[in-house]
């Protein structure tokens, strides 16, 4: 079973890298970019097909390591 975890910065957390990317997009001539926030994607392969267990485990993985919940949100998608 495969899963995709997306980690994004919480609203209001300053993102200097996103700001720099936004500036670079402007430099390239892309108009109308209202903002860019940088995040992370984790593709996780699980050695079983138990969807319920996967959701429990992936949530624990996010809480314990993959996301810093002080500044980041996470979303889990079973593929």
């Amino acid at each position, binding site marked *: 079973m495969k899963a995709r975890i997306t980690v994004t910065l919480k609203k209001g*957390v*300053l993102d*200097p890298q996103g700001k*720099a990317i936004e500036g670079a997009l402007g430099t390239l001539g892309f108009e109308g970019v209202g903002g860019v926030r940088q995040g992370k994607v984790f593709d996780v392969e699980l050695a079983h097909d138990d969807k319920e267990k996967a959701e429990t485990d992936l949530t624990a993985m996010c809480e314990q*390591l*993959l996301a*810093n919940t*002080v*500044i980041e949100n996470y979303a889990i998608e079973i593929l």
Partner: protein
Amino acid sequence: MKAAVILLPGLNRDRDMIAALTKISGRAPTTIWQTETSIPSDIDLIVIPGGFSYGDYLRCGAIAARMPVMRAVAERAKAGTRIMGVCNGFQILLEMGLLPGALMRNANLNFVCKEVELEVANAQTAFSNRYEQGQIIRCPVAHHDGNYCADDETLARLKGEHRVVFRYANGTNPNGSVNDIAGILNASGNILGMMPHPENLIEPAHGGDHGRGIFESALDLALA
């Protein structure tokens, strides 16, 4: 008091920290590797030095914070043992949840390696009592992710409880930290996290010794 330095792969300021503790206290600190599951009971000060533990992979300090030795550090933290994290050590303490907030990429996106000025914002802590309140000291910084941030409630609590120990002074904030925060304490006052490197300004060969006071305070050394 007896000090211990935590060692992790990828740290690079551990030798400087060991040298500083040895020169200032006259006794070499114990070193504790990341796989250890306990901290000797006679240790009164645990220091997590700077560097790039685990290559800064995932988030600075994130993987180091989950190593076995950190469970022992967290237990000692709860028991009131003094703990000090410098630079990557500060990032690790935040990832462990022992201190509030987070350190983001520097606002100007550059790695900064230079000297800054710090205001001693609280001189009545276990780590800063050799300074005068409001004293300005020099201190080197060297980091890419030192931009302290926290929600408004946390910032208000830090301020109200006088837990900001050091602030960047005189316009020398090198990373965009909110409220010029350079170093903070936990609520019970036994844990300090700071981005600047006091271990690199402890003797004339370094060009000054303004960093000594932090170690003299933390080690309860007799006043000279």
